[in-house]
């Protein structure tokens, strides 16, 4: 969905979503005032931030199964912006999908989307909902073609390109997925997470035997992880990926001892990179393990990094 860029809650961060949705009664102003937040809250203001907050709350409530509060949020939004607002329509669709009991209810949502789109073919939130719904109905091929249709009309939507890459990857179409992620990067060239994601994708492709030139893919993977680290110098995923990708390059002997082309890194450089990445990874893992609560949302990443470090640790 659009507007999640400045989200305090992101989709994978279930903990903070839960925390936010527990405050729902207080924020929405009914029910007992439980905490300081409610005590200090002024009468609702008619500002963009306020409505962004309500949208956030709506998503968090849906994620944690608090459908009643979600309904209240949705009512408030559609009261302010009218039920025919595109974004509100998208949110309503999301709500209906969430409360759908079985597959036939979802099919009904899909039919509804089709009618909306036949009225207004460029209703972007509904187009995106349709793609997501097709995906959750286990129809990835349809989802891909719907997404391609969307991207044909709006080729400057990084979110949609990212989703397309994910869909392609789930179908095992590596090079198409790489292409899509590169398009997303062209729109947001400084996003280190997409760089790291592309690095991961390249790494995966370089291990699959069917894809083109594994040496080149692994080399590019190293490059993208490096770029991601350059943009954000304590990005755990970047370092983790760099360790893996450099190990791949070293194990398969992709890097020449003394390269003819100056842009190709030598074996020595790759080795140095690996040592550097391992050091930093260890450093990050140590510092974040101390401050456990703060990094609670990325605990799984931390565990994976620890596991990798143990595996690669030199035998004593």
């Amino acid at each position: 969905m659009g507007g999640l860029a400045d989200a305090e809650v992101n989709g994978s961060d279930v903990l903070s979503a839960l925390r936010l949705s527990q405050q729902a009664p207080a924020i929405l102003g009914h029910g007992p005032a439980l905490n300081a937040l409610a005590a200090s809250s002024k009468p609702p203001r008619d500002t963009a931030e306020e409505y962004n907050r309500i949208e956030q709350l709506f998503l968090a409530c849906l994620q944690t199964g608090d459908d009643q509060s979600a309904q209240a949020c949705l009512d408030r939004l559609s009261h302010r912006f009218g039920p025919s607002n595109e974004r509100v329509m998208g949110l309503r669709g999301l709500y209906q999908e969430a409360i759908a009991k079985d597959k036939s209810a979802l099919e009904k949502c899909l039919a509804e989307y089709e009618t909306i789109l036949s009225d207004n073919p460029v209703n972007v939130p509904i187009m995106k909902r349709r793609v997501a719904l097709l995906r959750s109905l286990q129809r990835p091929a349809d989802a891909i073609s719907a997404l391609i249709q969307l991207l044909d009309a709006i080729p400057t939507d990084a979110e949609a390109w990212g989703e397309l890459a994910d869909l392609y990857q789930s179908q095992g179409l590596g090079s198409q997925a790489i292409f899509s992620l590169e398009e997303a990067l062209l729109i947001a060239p400084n996003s280190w997470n997409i760089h790291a994601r592309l690095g991961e994708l390249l790494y995966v492709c370089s291990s699959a035997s069917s894809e083109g030139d594994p040496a080149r893919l692994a080399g590019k993977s190293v490059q993208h992880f490096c770029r991601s680290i350059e943009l954000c110098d304590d990005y755990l995923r970047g370092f983790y990926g760099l360790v893996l990708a450099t190990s791949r390059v070293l194990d398969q002997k992709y890097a020449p001892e003394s390269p003819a082309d100056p842009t190709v890194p030598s074996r020595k450089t790759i080795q140095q990179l690996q040592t550097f990445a391992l050091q930093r990874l260890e450093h990050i893992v140590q510092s974040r393990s101390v401050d456990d609560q703060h990094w609670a949302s990325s605990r799984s990443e931390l565990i994976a990094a620890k596991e990798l470090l143990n595996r690669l640790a030199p035998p004593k």
Partner: protein
Amino acid sequence: MAVPGVEQTILRDPALFYWILFPISVVMILTGILRHYATVLMNTPPKPASTLAESRERHALLRGVNLRNHACSVLDRESFEARKNYLLNGFRSGAFLKDPNNRGQPPANPMTDPAGMEAMMGMLKGNMMMMIPQTLIMSWINAFFSGFVILKLPFPLTIRFKSMLQSGVMTRDLDVQWVSSLSWYFLNLMGLQSVFGFILGSDNAANQMAQQMGMANPAAMMNPMQPGQDPDKLFLSEAENLEVMEHFCILDGVEERILRNFAPVVN
């Protein structure tokens, strides 16, 4: 000319302050506020694209610009060439146009094109909103208050400011510090922006918010093309820009760069 060194004194009736200076200022502030709300009411948000093809026409150009600006930080030579060729082909053959059959024909007359008409109405409304109150107030001041000297500035000014501060008072020898009523109107007209900002919040908080929520997807609403512009011409010039582009990639040598810039921090 004013005699230097000698303070000019003019005896002013204090009623001048209550009946001219004060009313002009109040009227100017009130019209400013009124104009703001009238603009908010009459403002029509830009229309989003109504068909997929139209939306594509709007965004294709941005895609070219994105490729041109960001290719160096993402793509290697091979994938850059592929994308460049695709976009060049599309721009040249008119594949991104709303209806490729109309290509090469002169753009529709904005007077007959309903979309263009609407955009022109919007501009007209905005201009009217400025013009009409100003004409009215200025003629009001001219009719009732012309020729009054109503204010003395507490600081000296150079002779150049005479035309700015003393319009409507044809006195050659009057010192520049004296301000006429018509000039006070002009000063208010130009200088009340910050007052409006203070009164109306950050000037136009109301209409900004309605727009923000309206945009589900800011990119989808954006229209890089002005009404009346021929998209085909824009595409062709963008194709030219793309064609002359020199490719380089900042990912080349990123490994050494990382080692040089970041490794010493750890060691």
